[in-house]
C-alpha cells in the first residue's frame, strides 16, 4: 500500500513501467531538438514553445503542441523524446486528478513538483540510454503563496527554480542570452511587462531561436502556423489564440529589409 491517493503507485502495482529499460550507456547523443521558454510577467507566468518535431535532420511534424495543460492551474512544456514526454504528461494529468478526487483537496504546488521529479527519476535509465531523455519546464500557480512559479529540470530529475525565466531545448542557448540581456538592461524587466508586451517578447524570442537552430520551427504566416503561448494566472491557464498572435507578429515582430 503506497501513499493515499497516489495514482502512479496504483499503476505500478498493476505492472506499469514508465519508459523502456534500455541498456545504459549506449552512448547516443541526447536530442532535445526544440525551444521552450517560460518567464514571469506582470500578471503571472507565460509559457511558450515552437511547433516543430524532428528526427535527426528530418522535420517530422510542424504542428506539435509542446506546451501542455496538466490541470486548470499548471502547464508542462516539453523538450526531449516526445513519446516519453507525452506519457509523462498523461501520468501527471491522471495523478493530479486522482489525488484531487480521492483526497477531496487539490494537490499542493510542492506536491506537483515532487510528482514531476519522481517521474523523471524513474526514467533515468531510459534517459541515459538516449531513448527517453526529457528536460521539461513545469509552471503553475501556487495558491499557498499566491503567485505563479517556474521550475525546470535536467534529464535526471534535478529541480531548479526559474526565478525570472527558464529555457530548455536545442534553441535555448540562443535565447538564454537574449533573456538575460533584456531582463537586465531592457526598458523594463520581464516581470513588469503587461500581457501584450510579454506575448510580443515571446514571439520575438522564438523567432530568434528558429533563426539559429534548425530544429526549432519558426513562424509561418502563409500556413498560419504560430507558436503555442499559454498564460498562467490565479484564474487558471489560458491559451493566446492565433487570431491574437497574428496581428502582434505582423506589427511587432516582422521586419521588412
Amino acid at each position, binding site marked *: 500500500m503506497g501513499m493515499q491517493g497516489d*495514482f502512479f503507485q496504483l499503476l505500478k502495482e498493476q505492472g506499469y513501467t514508465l519508459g523502456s529499460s534500455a541498456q545504459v550507456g549506449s552512448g547516443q547523443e541526447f536530442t532535445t531538438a526544440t525551444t521552450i521558454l517560460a518567464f514571469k510577467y506582470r500578471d503571472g507566468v507565460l509559457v511558450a514553445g515552437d511547433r516543430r518535431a524532428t528526427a535527426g535532420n528530418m522535420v517530422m511534424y510542424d504542428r506539435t503542441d509542446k506546451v501542455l*495543460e496538466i490541470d486548470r492551474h499548471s502547464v508542462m512544456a516539453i523538450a526531449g523524446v516526445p513519446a516519453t514526454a507525452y506519457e509523462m504528461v498523461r501520468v501527471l494529468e491522471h495523478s493530479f*486528478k486522482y489525488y*484531487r*478526487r480521492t483526497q*477531496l483537496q487539490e494537490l499542493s504546488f510542492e506536491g506537483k513538483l515532487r510528482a514531476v521529479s519522481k517521474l523523471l527519476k524513474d526514467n533515468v535509465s531510459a534517459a541515459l540510454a538516449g531513448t527517453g531523455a526529457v528536460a521539461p519546464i513545469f509552471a503553475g500557480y501556487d495558491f499557498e503563496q499566491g503567485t505563479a512559479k517556474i521550475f525546470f529540470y535536467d534529464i535526471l530529475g534535478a529541480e531548479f527554480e526559474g526565478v525570472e525565466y527558464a529555457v530548455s531545448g536545442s534553441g535555448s542557448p540562443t535565447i538564454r542570452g537574449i533573456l538575460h540581456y533584456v531582463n537586465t538592461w531592457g526598458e523594463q524587466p520581464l516581470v513588469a511587462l503587461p500581457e501584450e508586451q510579454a506575448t510580443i517578447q515571446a514571439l520575438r524570442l522564438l523567432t530568434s531561436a528558429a533563426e539559429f537552430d534548425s530544429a526549432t520551427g519558426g513562424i509561418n504566416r502563409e500556413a498560419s502556423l504560430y507558436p503555442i503561448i499559454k498564460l498562467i494566472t490565479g484564474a487558471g491557464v489560458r491559451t493566446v489564440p492565433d487570431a491574437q498572435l497574428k496581428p502582434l507578429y505582423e506589427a511587432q515582430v516582422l521586419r521588412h529589409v
Partner: protein
Amino acid sequence: MYEEPYRWVEAVGNRRTYLDEQFKQGSPVVALTYDGGLALVTVSKGTPKLYEIYDRIALGGLGHPADLEKLRFSLLEMAHTEGFNRSPSDVTGSRLVKYGMAPVIKQAFEEVYKAPFILKVLLAELGQKPEKDTLLTINYDGTFEETTGCAVLAATPAVQKEMTSYLHQEMSSGLSLAQAVATALRAWALGDRAQRQASEDKERGDEKPTPAAKPASLDAASLSAHLRDRVVEKTIECAVLDRNQPGTSKYRALNQDELGRLLPNDLKAALAS
C-alpha cells in the same frame, strides 16, 4: 443453519428489513438536468454526500459514510486506471455501475455471514450532447436503473416514486440552474417529509398514512417551510456537471456564496439560519 435454501431466503429477507431500517434517517439525494448540464442536490450533516468520480461523472450517496467511502475509492480506482490505459471517453457511468458496483454490492448483500453495504448510490453522467446525459441509481441489493431527466435516492421506493412524480410535474425543459436547484430542494423537502411521516406512522402503529394530510402539501410554500425547519445546523450541498466548464473536468461543487445567490428568496432564509 443457512444450508437449507429456505433459511437462506429468510436470512436475505431479514437483511432487507434491517437495511430498510438503516435508511430511515437518511437525507434524500436529487439529480436533474438543467440548461447547462446536470445538477445534484442534497442536504447533509457533517460528511459530504456528493463527489466527483471522473471528468464527466458525479456521485451522490445515501447510507453509511464508511461504506460510501469504500465504494467511492473502488470507483475512482476503476475510472482512473481505465481512463489512463484506454481513454477518458471509455469511462462511462453505465459500465462503472454494471461491472464495477452492482456485482460487488449484490454479492455483499447475499453473503449472509458478512456485512452488507449500507448504501444507495446515484451516478450522474454528462454526455457529449445533452440528450446523452444519463442518471443511474443502484440499490443496496445491487439492482440498478438507468434514467434521464431526473433521479432520486430516498429511504423507500414509495418515497422515491413520490419525489420523481413531483419532479416530473415541476420540471420543464431548459430550466436554469437556479430553477433546477429550487425544484430539487423542494423535491428534497417532499421526500424528507414523507420519510419522517412514514416512520412516525410506524411508531404509532398505524400502517396506513392519514389520507387527509396529503393533497394540501404539494405547494411550494409548505415545502419551503419544511426545508427551513429541517436545514438548521445542516448544509445544503449542490454540485454540477457543467457542460460549459472549460477543460476536461466538468464537475464543480457550488460554494455557499454561489448557492446563496442562486436560491429563490423564500429559500434564502433557510440557508441564512
